[in-house]
Structure formats: structure tokens, C-alpha cells
């Protein structure tokens, strides 16, 4: 096929542009959570197949690497959750001015950390019960 003209590609954008960063992070975290759904289906299936299957799945899902994956999934969820709320607010036509969207980008960053911290504190509290 003949070489066709290309529109500006990844390399011309500056990652320091918060609009680009927040947008691509929303996509990446969404994709990560899609993988999380596969893990959920695997885990539920193992649960439904009896004690042995559940034990095997628990062994796989509680390994060091798996723990890292779940920590990542929790943070991905927190980001996607807060960034999603930002999108829903945009959809009502609010907060679209440049200054507002820059502020809300910071709010998303702070909200992600706060939400993740709440979940982690809750998990350690629930674990001690």
C-alpha cells in the first residue's frame, strides 16, 4: 500500500500536558480493571468448584506477584473511579474551562490517593476484627 500521510503521533505530544496524562491514565486503568474482571471470573469459578479448586486459586492469587497486581488494581480502581466522576461532571456541561479542568485534574490525583488510603486503612481495620 502507498505511504499515506500521518496525523501528529505520540511523539509530538508533551506528556507534561495534564489533559493527555489524565486521559491516557483513565484508559490504562480501565484496561487494567478489565483484566481484573477476568481474575474475578476465575476466582468465582474456582470458588464454585469446591474446596480444592478454591485452595489452588487462593494459592495463586495470594503470591507475591499477585499481591502486587491487586495493589495495582486497587489504585487503578481508585483513579478510574475519581476520574470517571470528573467525566460525569463534564457531561453535565460543568467544569470545562481550562482553569477548572486543571483544578479538577489535581482533585483527581488527590482523590485517588485519599480513596486508596481509605481502602487500605479499612482493609487493615477489617483484618484485625
Amino acid at each position, binding site marked *: 500500500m502507498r505511504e499515506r500521510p500521518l496525523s501528529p503521533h505520540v511523539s509530538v505530544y508533551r506528556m507534561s500536558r495534564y489533559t493527555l496524562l489524565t486521559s491516557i491514565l483513565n*484508559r490504562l486503568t480501565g*484496561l487494567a480493571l478489565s483484566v481484573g474482571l477476568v481474575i*474475578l471470573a476465575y476466582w468465582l*469459578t474456582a*470458588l*464454585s468448584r469446591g474446596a480444592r479448586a478454591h485452595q489452588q486459586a487462593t494459592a495463586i492469587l*495470594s503470591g507475591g506477584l499477585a499481591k502486587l497486581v491487586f495493589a495495582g488494581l486497587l489504585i487503578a*480502581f481508585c483513579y478510574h473511579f475519581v476520574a470517571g466522576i470528573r467525566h460525569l461532571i463534564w457531561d453535565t456541561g460543568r467544569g470545562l474551562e481550562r482553569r477548572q479542568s486543571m483544578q479538577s485534574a489535581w482533585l483527581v490525583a488527590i482523590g485517588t490517593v485519599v480513596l486508596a488510603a481509605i*481502602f487500605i486503612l479499612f*482493609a487493615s481495620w477489617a483484618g484485625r476484627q
Partner: protein
Amino acid sequence: MSLRSPLARVLGHGSAKEGVHHWWMQRLTSIALLPLTVWFVVALLSLPLHDRASVAAWVANGWTPLLLIVFVLVATWHSRLGVQVVIEDYVPAAGTKTFSLILSTFAHFLVAAAAIFAVLKVAFE
């Protein structure tokens, strides 16, 4: 038979409003997922996951199986819509794109069906 031309019958009715269907379903599922995901994550974090009896008892208890099925359905739907957009944006070749979209749809259906089947099986254990 009406003497009105087909054009006259169509004019003024606007579009079928289907153009925003994908966008709209993405928003509806995201709104539904706000409470559903928080409920699910809180439940996961408070369950003793190594203990099958406790987890199975939770899955089978009261409204939990219903909520779990709703969560799985809405989450896989939302995921399918999201992955679809990513594929449409980043897979350039038409053939690979169509193939990826079909694969993604099938995979999402399989994940949803497997999870729902498992929930029902545990609920009726």
C-alpha cells in the same frame, strides 16, 4: 395510500437518537458502577478470602448473589464498551480491528457468563 412524499414524512422528525447510544450506555453503566464497585471492594476487603466456607456463605447470603450478578453484568458491559473504543482508536488495520472487536465481545460475554454461573452455583449450593 398517502399522497405525502416519503421525504415529507421524515423531515422534522430528527434522527433516531441512536447516534449517542454507545456514549449513553457508557455513562449509565458508569453511574451504576459508582455504588456497585464500592460495595464490592469493601466486601472483598472485609472477607477472609482464604476461608472458602465464609466466602461461599457471603456469596449465597440474602441480596448478595443478586447484587453480584448485577455488578458483573454492568461491569463487563462497561468494560466491553471501553475496550471497544480503545481498539477502534489504536488498531489501525481494518481486518485486525474487526477481529479484535469480535474477540473482545466474545471474551466479555464469556467472563460475564462464567462469573454469573459461578455465583448461581455457589448461591444454590
